[in-house]
């Protein structure tokens, strides 16, 4: 009896405090942000923690990817599309109490486009000629050429508004205008945010939000099952999802991301210089088999470099229908009846490593031999991305609306088509939505017909959520985990 009491006392102590009213949320993510400045690194983890939660831009992405007013309440665009006059919201303050006004916007945009700027998406600001504060609540941005995506560009995490007063320590102590304030960072373990009581808009329902970094898929499973975390964003072990779906304690959200996963092809390397060879590769790939085999069924097949959930998406999957016989005859036509050998360089994510093995066997079936090498990201960037030393590689391009990379002949897959480049130039200048849609459709068709890369599938984002958590975005229009509207149901 005594022993029993003792054991239960130990069990109680070990189990920790009594359950309290749910006002905080613990979100598991795989990668830790290297630092906390969204305007000077490409790491998606920075935006996941800070975008909209801590930092806000002039405009912001909604859950469906639409561009909504952010710190700018409204704007006027001049007839010629060159001048944007932003009206800023009244009474917005940074978390350190200083006011957010036009001078902060001027500072932020000028800093991002400066000569020595370390902004990973500097191209977003490329067309800006000048930024001036008309009065404390009005900012005028002048562009050198009309840019139909300017408001979209300003919604990126790389374009958030930062303050002169707090810029020096932004990497470890980020000060923004969002509904959450940065509170604490236990490096290697977690980042804590607390509710900003002086928020200009609808205050957050959560009092605290904690992001925990759990990189190992098995550990992620254990943490979720033990209910150590309430949400696991981009859950890394899709093979466990059915188990969570069957468990009433959890809910599984499978959303779409901006990640076009492609079999990138070196267009300047023999024999991929021949469009027939690229077309043969496209027809040799069984997309559904890759999605089932490598992604446990998660993902949508694509036939061009564009997100299927976008209203302007054109379904071109029929263009590269799985047809090994056609692939073989195309290869023969191109003079490779006996096939050829090329390299297939794979970065670390499972879509690449698992998908690579499947693609290699599918290509082998039509006579193309691949030498697979597994690379770390840093090696991949050096060898493949900058060195252009590859035949094939698999990578997910996660930036939203990035079809413009096909207009850059020096980009690693080295596609050089002057017609396409002119089209993208015109598209950038075009502001009429209907005309833009048409042009975007044409762009998708051109790169699909040219078989620039093997288009595989749109990466899905599975998120495991504890029952009772409401308002988590299922889709990922940008790499954000916007918690401003998340709450616990009573």
């Amino acid at each position: 009896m005594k022993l029993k009491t003792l054991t239960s006392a130990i069990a109680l102590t070990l189990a920790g405090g009594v359950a309290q009213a749910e006002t905080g949320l613990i979100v598991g993510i795989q990668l830790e942000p290297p630092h906390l400045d969204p305007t000077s690194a490409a790491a998606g983890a920075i935006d996941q923690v800070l975008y909209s939660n801590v930092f806000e831009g002039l405009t912001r992405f909604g859950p469906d990817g639409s561009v909504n007013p952010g710190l700018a309440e409204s704007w006027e665009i001049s007839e010629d599309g060159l001048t944007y006059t932003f009206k800023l919201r009244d009474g917005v303050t940074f978390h350190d109490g200083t006011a957010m006004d036009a001078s902060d916007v001027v500072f932020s945009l000028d800093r991002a486009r400066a000569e020595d700027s370390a902004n990973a998406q500097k191209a977003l600001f490329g067309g800006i000629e000048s930024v001036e504060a008309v009065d404390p609540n009005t900012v005028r941005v002048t562009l050198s050429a009309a840019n139909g995506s300017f408001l979209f560009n300003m919604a990126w995490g790389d374009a958030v508004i930062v303050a002169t007063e707090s810029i020096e320590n932004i990497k470890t102590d980020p000060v923004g205008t969002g509904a959450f304030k940065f509170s604490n960072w236990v490096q290697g373990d977690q980042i804590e945010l607390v509710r900003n009581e002086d928020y200009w808009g609808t205050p957050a329902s959560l009092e605290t939000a904690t992001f925990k970094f759990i990189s190992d898929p098995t550990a992620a499973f254990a943490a979720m099952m033990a209910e150590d975390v309430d949400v696991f964003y981009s859950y890394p072990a899709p093979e466990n999802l059915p188990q969570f779906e069957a468990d009433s304690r959890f809910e599984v959200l499978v959303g779409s991301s901006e990640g076009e996963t492609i079999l990138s092809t070196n267009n300047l390397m023999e024999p991929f210089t021949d469009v027939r060879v690229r077309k043969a590769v496209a027809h040799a790939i069984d997309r559904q088999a890759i999605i089932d085999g490598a992604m446990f069924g998660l993902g949508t097949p694509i036939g061009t470099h564009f997100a299927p959930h976008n209203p302007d998406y054109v379904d071109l999957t029929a263009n590269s229908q799985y047809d090994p016989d056609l692939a073989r005859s195309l290869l023969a036509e191109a003079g490779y009846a006996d096939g050829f050998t090329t390299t297939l360089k794979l970065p670390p994510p499972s879509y690449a490593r698992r998908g690579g093995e499947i693609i290699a066997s599918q290509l082998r079936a039509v006579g193309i031999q691949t030498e697979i090498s597994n690379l770390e990201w840093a090696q991949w960037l050096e060898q493949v991305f900058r060195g252009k030393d590859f035949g094939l590689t698999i990578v997910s391009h996660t930036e939203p609306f990035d079809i413009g990379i096909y207009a850059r002949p020096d980009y690693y897959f080295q596609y050089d088509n002057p017609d396409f480049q002119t089209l993208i130039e015109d598209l950038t200048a075009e502001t009429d939505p209907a005309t833009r849609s048409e042009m975007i459709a044409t762009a998708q068709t051109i790169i699909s017909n040219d078989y620039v890369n093997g288009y595989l599938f749109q990466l899905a984002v599975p998120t495991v959520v504890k029952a009772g958590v409401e308002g988590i975005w299922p889709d990922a229009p940008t790499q954000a985990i916007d918690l401003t509207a998340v709450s616990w149901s009573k």
Partner: protein
Amino acid sequence: MAHYVLTRLLSLAISLIVASIVIFALIEIIPGDPAAFMLGINAQEDTVAALRSELGLDASPVARYFEWVGGMVTGDFGTSYTYRTPVTEMIGERLWISLPLALIALALSTLIAFPVGILAASRRGSMTDTVIMGFTQLGVAIPNFWFAMLMVLVFAINLRWFSAGGFPGWDEGLVAGLKALTLPAVSLALPQASILARVMRSALVDTLDEDFMRTARAKGLTRGQAIKRHALRNAMIPVLTIIGLQFSFLLAGAIIIENVFFLPGLGRLIFQAISQRDLIVVESVVMLLVFAVIVVNFAVDIAYAIVDPRLRRQA
């Protein structure tokens, strides 16, 4: 004894200098640019160049080597490329997890291994010995990460006595910290204890056959007294060697266990730093681990001399 200590100290210093050169050279050779890694695939060339010069990566390797070594001598390990915080601070924080973890695991391992090994040796050939040896064989064979996952399954997911992982920080109190380290320490300690128990047993078995043991028994000592006074001391040399090796392993090699329990320790820091090409952190942590291993070996050498006076005279 003084001469013995001095020669050991000299070899310690030479090892450190050689290690620093090897580490720096190896890391220089690894392909991959930290600036390019940080800025990702949409960055413009001029941005990457600006960041490289901001990080001081455009200086020559020789200049950077001397700056690094010079800094280390004064306790300044430089600033992390990715995190932009002082490396000394980062290592300090991680050490507060890795060091206690290694010490707890080592203590557990020794506490289990000593009595078990002694018991098995003194009952050599008996049923007890066979059972103990069977279990230690199993302990050596089971991979510690698998054992760790099993413990998570039982104690975190089913019984809910522990968290599945993570570390709340020592600010949350000693109990919370120790609680978070319990499962990892046990999973680390089990295979180590098995190895140590086997070494303890075989070393003791060897000495039990020695002439001096027969003499001791002939003088009238009981079996237990003879083991305690004569056999144990002589069996300590191989056991100390193994403990020294184990401590170094536990400090640096807990990386898999740190991943299973997502503990922010040194192992994970170095793993992350390698993939991010945070070269300065890799260099400094590796150097620190080399230093720890060398110092532990030095301590073991000194301990040899204490338990075995013959070694002192030799040197």
